[in-house]
């Protein structure tokens, strides 16, 4: 791919701009030093509806949206691509129901991570550890997906086509910048950058969904081209006696796959610790619920972006690497300078969630592994220090995923994380309503789900990729193909229930201690005072009256 200087300069200017914002964010809305987790990792728990909307949008709008979904639409069509639209619609009712409860109980007890909640709810540090480890593990491929997104635009810009270190240098630079501002500014950096990012993203998407169809002759022409493409692929597949790889519509064989991918992903999204981080950073309980009315705007944008994959087909973009479909479409359709804006939108769009994700993973490590297992007496300042360092380590773990797993089918990286994170659903989501489940039952159920999910995903292969090639497999006993995450969750719940019943009969006294009260799940803070956690000498520490 040839180097385009104009696009690169625009890209570089925007990238430098957001990096400066990232470092400057350390001073934004600050009343205290950033030496405790509430300040560093949750922005002081002070964000109102407006900032929260952008921040949560930042969680949803990732390289997944811009690279993986159009890539899947381009290569595979409706089932692996368009399900994301159903998924991002269904996620909001789930948020509406679950998240206010999690916000209340977390605010009451100062929880920073979902594992903090589980530990206190079920009186089991072991279960908390399992939840934390799952969160960190599941975030790895998700952060990796963000890096893949950045890599994709760099590649299309003609960078990183050298060899060895030179090839990876642009990605490494982007990576170091991300790591540095996350380290110094914490959650304030992605929250502030999210504004710039959304402005860029909306500009690019609105131009793309109006301008590109005009150039291609309208949506009817685009869908007509996709339909004939589907027929061509089907004919070629029929000649080889293999099933077609591209679908314009789900067929009877893939109804289950489509529905389980949508439902499983929707249930999984707010189990991810970085989504919870975005929720807990808001100032009021109902902020998040009111937000769910307006957050579907992001889903609408995602749908438009998904259609970029079909536009790439109609525009005659040819690539065997589907994750390049959207950037190549920008290159083919836009003038250089606007292509530069679009590349920057994708890259910055990957930085924001990558920062939030690494903060969330670092918090899990600090609170639920470092503090709970090794240093009970860790001070808040020490927690913040450990978290900052952990946020760096986490990013390198993600880099290992980029190198270790085939990234062509990028959407699979996110789906793989979903398989793992969904196994925390019984403890976190169901735990918000009932603690009927026994802690050991939850641990064994989790273990069963994790093992089943990982082994099954490992066994999915295609002619070109040996392992982890997809996220759907035959559902035992149903005879249909479905998202592995949901099958594993059913197994998880079954094991947890059976063990719970058994233990309640034979060892009722082993039920853990619940630190939460029923009222903790519904408190809001109207007119009450949030006590600053620490009065720090030499800093202006004022009481925030809400």
């Amino acid at each position, binding site marked *: 791919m040839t180097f385009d200087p104009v696009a690169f300069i625009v890209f570089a200017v925007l990238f430098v701009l957001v990096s400066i914002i990232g470092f400057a964010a350390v001073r934004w809305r600050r009343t205290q030093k950033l030496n405790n987790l509430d300040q560093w990792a949750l922005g002081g728990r002070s964000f109102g509806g407006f900032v929260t909307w952008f921040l949560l949008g930042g969680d949803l709008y990732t390289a997944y949206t811009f690279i993986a979904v159009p890539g899947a639409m381009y290569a595979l069509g409706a089932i692996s691509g368009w399900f994301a639209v159903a998924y991002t619609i*269904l996620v909001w009712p789930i948020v*509406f129901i679950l998240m206010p409860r999690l916000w209340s109980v977390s605010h009451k*007890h100062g929880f920073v991570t979902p594992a903090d909640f589980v530990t206190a709810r079920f009186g089991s540090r072991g279960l908390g550890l399992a939840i934390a480890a799952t969160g960190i593990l599941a975030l790895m491929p998700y952060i990796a997906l963000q890096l893949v997104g950045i890599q994709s635009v760099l590649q299309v810009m003609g960078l990183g086509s050298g060899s060895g270190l030179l090839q990876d240098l642009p990605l490494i630079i982007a990576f170091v910048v991300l790591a540095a501002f996350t380290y110094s500014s914490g959650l304030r950096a992605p929250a502030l950058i999210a504004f710039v990012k959304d402005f860029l993203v909306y500009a690019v998407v609105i131009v793309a969904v109006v301008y590109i169809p005009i150039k291609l002759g309208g949506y*009817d022409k685009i869908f007509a081209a996709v339909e004939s493409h589907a027929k061509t692929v089907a004919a070629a597949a029929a000649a080889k006696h293999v099933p077609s790889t591209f679908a314009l519509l789900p067929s009877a064989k893939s109804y289950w796959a489509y529905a389980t991918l949508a439902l499983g992903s929707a249930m999984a999204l707010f189990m991810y610790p970085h989504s919870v981080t975005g929720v807990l950073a808001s100032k009021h309980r109902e902020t998040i619920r009111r937000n769910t*009315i307006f957050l*579907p705007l992001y889903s609408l944008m995602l749908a438009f972006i998904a259609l970029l994959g079909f536009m790439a087909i109609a525009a005659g973009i040819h690539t065997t690497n589907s994750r390049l479909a959207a950037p190549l479409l920008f290159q083919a359709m836009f003038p250089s300078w606007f292509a530069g804006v679009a590349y920057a939108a994708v890259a910055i769009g990957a930085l924001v969630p990558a920062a939030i994700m690494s903060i969330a993973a670092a918090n899990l490590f600090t609170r639920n592994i470092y503090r709970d297992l090794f240093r009970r007496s860790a001070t*808040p300042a020490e927690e913040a220090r450990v978290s900052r360092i952990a946020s760096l380590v986490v990013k390198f773990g993600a880099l290992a995923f980029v190198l270790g797993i085939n990234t062509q089918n990028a959407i699979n990286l996110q789906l793989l994380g979903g398989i793992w994170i969904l196994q925390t659903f019984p403890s976190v989501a169901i735990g918000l309503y009932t603690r009927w489940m026994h802690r050991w039952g939850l641990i064994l159920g989790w273990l069963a789900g994790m093992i089943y999910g990982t082994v099954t995903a490992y066994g999915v292969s295609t002619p070109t990729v040996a392992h982890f090639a997809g996220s759907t497999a035959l559902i035992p006993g149903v005879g249909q193909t479905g998202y592995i995450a949901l099958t594993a969750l059913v197994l998880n719940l079954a094991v947890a229930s059976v063990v719970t019943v058994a233990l309640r009969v034979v060892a009722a006294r082993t039920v853990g201690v619940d630190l939460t009260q029923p009222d903790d799940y*519904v*408190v809001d803070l109207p007119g009450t005072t949030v006590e600053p956690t620490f009065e720090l000498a030499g800093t202006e520490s004022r009481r925030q009256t809400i």
Partner: protein
Amino acid sequence: MVEEDRFPRVVATAEGRPPRMSEAPAAYIASAVLLGAAFVALLWVPSYAHLTPDLGGIPFFYWYSLLWLVINACCQGIAYLLLVAAPRRRRQVRP
């Protein structure tokens, strides 16, 4: 055993809470229906996996999904009014 929270940091009361299910069953049932509608519509894939009727060349499957995006957002808005905004207003009228 887990030790007590070391940083109980919020002085909170339950006064501002939304009504419990037992206090406003109708609002809860209505909200459950409103929030559940999108699940039924979108997960029942055979009901909409069709090419026609198309909308300006966009197959039914695609524009119908987007229609539900809008319907669901409205449903959530109504559920918010029922569960949060209306009770809050009532509280303000009679403190």
